């Protein structure tokens, strides 16, 4: 039987800020105007009311650049030193169900044979606290790819915003006009794993038992959210249809627009391709892993000059087919969580939902 708790925003803030005394707490926040999951610190505002961060949660486990080891030449001898990174226990707070699903997909890639020990250590050290998503954007289509925005099965703990009428005041002595905006917000909280349960137990100073009707009120809200997303796609049969569309003229057409900038791959929570490169200065250097993109010409370019994907047509086809066909064949799931980041960020409006619609033989309403 799931136990439900309620917490208001000021108490949740106090709890999280208190936690930073002993561990890292990553929260949705903006730095220099860019929304990402950032380590909570004094002066950093938690983005309670913001939309899903531009930079996906994957970066907490698969960072944009990731040092692998250092090397140093001393008296003609070469020494390799591991990059000491003690992976500490931490909390990733505020990921949405779409990003939580993306972690389950990345687990398939970075686990298995030749598992990536750095990725796995970070995953193991991180408690996931997910938010039921009541901020769908016009480009969101998570429900079309099987993500339920109201729940993230991958998370240890769920936070769900309670509708206003089911929020009895939680012992606030301040007059309404003295409160921070949004401080009246309350969240229904429950654990989904043993680890999440222990975490909640450590936070009992901040949590109150859910009162009669609050769970039902949330469930009603959740049911209402089930079809709240503006963008709806029928994914039925898309993977199999794509098998027949490899030589379609659609790829050539789409690629005419593509700038090859790679933004779609960098903001994608499931894109996981990476490069390995060396940085050297004098007798010292560093080898690091960094995000790479199949949109780039040199992604497949070989030293001898041969390039199996010589034009944008092959490269854009690779991006969409990897997500919607190859990943399904390899790992049994579509590598798209419907977060809409690529749709929103693409400077030339290359849109994965357009591809899906066209493959289904439907019309693209907005064109």
């Amino acid at each position, binding site marked *: 039987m799931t136990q439900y708790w309620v917490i208001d925003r000021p108490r949740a803030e106090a709890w999280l800020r208190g936690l930073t005394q002993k561990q890292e707490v990553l929260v949705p926040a903006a730095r220099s105007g860019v929304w990402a999951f950032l380590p909570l610190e004094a002066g950093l505002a938690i983005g309670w009311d913001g939309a899903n961060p531009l930079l996906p949660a994957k970066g907490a486990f698969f960072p944009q650049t990731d040092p*692998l*080891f250092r*090397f140093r*030449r001393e008296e003609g001898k*070469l020494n*390799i030193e*591991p990059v*000491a*990174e003690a*992976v500490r226990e931490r909390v990733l707070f505020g990921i949405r169900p779409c990003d939580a699903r993306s972690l389950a997909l990345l687990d398939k*890639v*970075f686990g298995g*044979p*030749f598992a*990536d*020990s*750095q990725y796995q*250590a970070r995953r193991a050290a991180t408690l996931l606290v997910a938010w039921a998503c009541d901020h769908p954007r016009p480009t969101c289509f998570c429900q079309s790819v099987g993500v339920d925005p109201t729940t993230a099965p991958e998370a240890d703990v769920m936070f769900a915003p309670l509708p206003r009428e089911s929020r009895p005041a939680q012992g606030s002595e301040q007059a309404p006009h003295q409160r921070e905006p949004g401080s009246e917000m309350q969240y229904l909280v429950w654990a989904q794993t043993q680890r999440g349960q222990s975490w909640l137990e450590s936070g009992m100073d901040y949590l109150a038992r859910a009162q009669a009707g609050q769970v039902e009120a949330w469930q009603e809200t959740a049911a209402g959210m089930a079809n709240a997303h503006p963008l709806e796609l029928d994914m039925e049969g898309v993977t199999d249809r794509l*098998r027949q569309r*490899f030589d379609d003229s659609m790829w050539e057409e789409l690629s005419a627009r593509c700038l090859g900038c790679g933004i779609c791959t960098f903001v994608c929570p499931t894109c*996981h*391709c*990476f*490069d*390995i*490169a*060396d940085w*050297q200065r004098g007798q010292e*250097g560093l*080898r690091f*892993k960094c995000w*790479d993109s*199949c949109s780039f010409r040199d*992604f*497949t*370019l*070989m*030293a*001898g*000059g*041969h390039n*199996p*994907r010589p034009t944008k047509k*092959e490269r854009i086809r*690779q991006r969409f*087919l*990897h997500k919607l*066909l*190859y*990943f399904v*064949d*390899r790992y049994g799931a579509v590598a798209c969580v419907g977060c809409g980041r690529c749709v929103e960020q693409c400077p030339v409006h290359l849109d994965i939902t357009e591809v899906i619609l066209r493959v289904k033989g439907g019309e693209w309403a907005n064109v």
Partner: protein
Amino acid sequence: MRILLQPELVEITEVRQETRDTFTMRFRFPSPSLAAAFGFQPGQFNMLTVFGVGEAPISLSSCPRQQEYFEHTIRTVGNVTRAISRLQPGGRLGLRGPYGRGWPMEEIKGHDILVVAGGIGLAPLRGAIGCILAEPENYGRLEILYGARSPEDQIFTYEYAGWRAHPRVALRLSVDRAPGIHPGAGEDAAARTGAAAAGTDPPDAGRRFDRVGPVTTLFPDVELEPANTAVLMCGPEVMMRFAVAQLLERGFRAEQIYVSLERRMECGLGKCGHCLIGPVYVCKDGPVFSYAEIRDLPEEVF
């Protein structure tokens, strides 16, 4: 934390210049425990590191039965291989591996073997040839077809006499071009040996050729029948395209033809995504595939 992407150090013990731009390096592990632990299958590859320059996937070119050392045969084509080419015996490289699936040495036991190689594509096959010749009782006849651009571009010429001396081995050589000989002049070319190609100096005694043209011009000379023959093939993609097509026409089945593919790789572990062909990672699922496994992949392989 020790990670899979961190290389070990290996020492260069010997360098042999094969051609103008290709050399073979012999290596050993300075660490005795690593030396003892290192074993590989012919057709597998290592990621070789020049620290500060980068990494490149390079096939192992020696026979795994030789446990004192291992070799890589490298053509200078990019930053990493150029940096490797500047190293001398006593120098050190980083290495991680061996990676990938090599030639199916167990599955092809009891079969005749047809080796089809082009250019530096002979490198990953040299170890397979060595394994077959080391236990000839387990295999049938062996025919080696090797095509190079010119007699000067042939690699492993010092091996040819030994291969030829074996009663069950036939070695047939083609070159795309040779001084003074027109393509297609097969009979004339066959008559010429080292003297015509690269002089008669003993080190070059192996440099000769049977036909002028792509490696497929040797196909009419092949004696092996498709019925009980396994084909091991590696070379430029355009060569493999024509060679596979002609073998299929001759009655070989796609399942009997094994090819080794080349793609850009970063991790070698089936993670980084660079070598993907459809859902297949060349680094981990290959680089050796039966043609049946890759024939229907969405992206054109060759």
